[in-house]
């Protein structure tokens, strides 16, 4: 038995760790640091129908134990992703499940991307990004309006060949409203959390440091918010959760799982340490020993039966 294996709709993961969308691109450069086959899965950068150029620079800023980003969903577009990026992964890592992050400005964009990208054999699930805080039409409208979220999720589920996970925004008065709506629309699970909206002002120029003025806050600074929201959604829905937000270590991974996640994505940590994912995977067994955790499947089961 593999102590680290977890199973989720569409995803048989040999371990619960995967890079988070946008923090690992399409993996190509990171493959110079380690064998990507070590990963449980990989969530690739947002895909949109046509290539997107993204926001003005500077696009990143550093905050205390966190960072702001306003990349603005730059990506090479659906065609390039399907013909170059995904085949590159399939060829080298045929057994590595890919989760495709899908974004768009309007419902039909999302539907187009879901329909097409879900036909690619190594794409095992879709992460529907309705929570990008960094573009005017980046889904946050869908992500904060339950009716729009319901309609969008329903339309995407209808065309997708693979299970659909909806990425939830933390910038909400009550996240459960959206969780319930997308659950009713047929989502297979949630991924959470996307970034918190934040800002940094450059004292020298007295202007926002980011070209986009505001950006999304990620990193260890936001972990307590992630733990709480994951726990809140876990208690109000039976759908599985891929948790993320500030995970830097095996301990953080276990904390998110105890909160209610079934797998864990690692974002910002990749920037501090390009080998963050394999380092966490390696540390998990001994950390589980320390906390008397036999295997992750039974821990997840335990937290489902008696949530904290």
């Amino acid at each position: 038995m593999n102590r680290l294996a977890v199973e989720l709709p569409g995803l048989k993961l040999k371990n619960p760790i995967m890079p988070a969308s946008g923090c690992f691109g399409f993996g190509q450069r990171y493959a110079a640091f380690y064998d990507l086959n070590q990963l449980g899965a990989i969530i690739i950068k947002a895909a949109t129908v046509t290539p997107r150029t993204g926001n003005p620079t500077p696009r990143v800023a550093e905050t205390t134990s966190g960072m702001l980003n306003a990349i603005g969903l730059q990506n090479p577009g659906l065609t390039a992703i399907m013909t170059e990026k995904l085949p590159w992964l399939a060829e080298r890592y045929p057994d590595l499940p890919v989760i495709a992050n899908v974004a768009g400005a309007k419902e039909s964009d999302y539907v187009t991307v879901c329909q097409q990208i879900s036909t690619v054999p190594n794409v095992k699930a879709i992460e529907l990004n309705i929570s990008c805080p960094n573009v005017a039409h980046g889904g946050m409208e869908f992500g904060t309006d339950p009716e729009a979220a319901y309609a969008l999720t329903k339309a995407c589920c209808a065309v997708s060949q693979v299970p659909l996970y909806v990425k939830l925004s933390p910038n909400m008065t009550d996240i459960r409203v959206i969780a319930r709506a997308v659950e009713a629309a047929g989502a297979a699970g949630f991924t959470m959390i996307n970034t918190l909206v934040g800002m940094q002002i450059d004292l020298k120029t007295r202007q926002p440091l980011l070209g986009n003025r505001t950006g999304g806050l990620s990193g260890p600074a936001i972990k307590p918010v992630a733990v709480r929201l994951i726990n809140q959604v876990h208690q109000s829905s039976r759908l599985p959760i891929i948790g993320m937000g500030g995970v830097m270590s095996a301990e953080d991974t276990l904390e998110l799982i105890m909160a209610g996640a079934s797998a864990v994505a690692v974002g910002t940590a990749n920037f501090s340490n390009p080998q963050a994912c394999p380092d966490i995977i390696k540390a998990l067994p001994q950390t589980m020993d320390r906390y008397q955790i036999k295997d992750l499947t039974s821990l997840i089961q335990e937290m489902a039966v008696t949530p904290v």
Partner: protein
Amino acid sequence: MLQEKLTVCRQRQLTADVFELTLQGKMATIAQQAGQFVDVLVPDQRYLLRRPFGITQVDAAKQQLTLIYRTVGQGTSILSQLKVGANLDTLGPLGNGFPTEFLQTKQHVLIIGGGTGIPPLYNLAQQLVARGVQVTSAIGFGTQKQIFYEAEFRALGAVHYATDDGSYGFHGHIGLLLDAEFATTHFDAIYACGPRGLLLAVNNRYREHPHAYISLESRMACGVGECYACVVPAEDQQALYKVCDDGPVFATGKVAI
């Protein structure tokens, strides 16, 4: 491209706010193109993003590489306090350096640098001189007190200084120095690194030159080409280049600075 814990083997203050840091490790033995950079994790876990620095010198035999940095913020201040023996988690060498393969012995290049743009240019000048290429340097600083590596550059060829306040060398910014001194001289290649104003001047002046290169800075997250943080638009705005991965060195006329 390695991730390695380099060991501080020397730290030396060059001016009021500029430091020279020599690091030891295998990274120094990987073939380096001058103009490549390293990305350093500040040893304070509140800071998650690495800091990019050009490589100033490489000594493969001693397994040493040298950086020069100005203390501008929290990260560089912490670096300046590192003692010999400290470890520094470093990625590198990263990016594409200055193209030089077309140069022949006795050919003549102009190096144009300003402030903390000069570190990678020193590496370049060393490598070129070793290959028998003739190097002339035009170097700008705010004021005389800020100048560092003067002897090092003079040892490699003719050096012209410009200072904004006229306290040393030519009085005025580097663009004016170029006009005054090099308007008519032919160079087989031009290499520049420094503040935006300097890069703009070089980009305009040597737009048509077949071998003129500028090295850019940009805020980075991944440093390796996967996050799209560090982009710079093509001059025709039809594409975006990644400074970390497509750069940091670009031919003049290629990018909108």
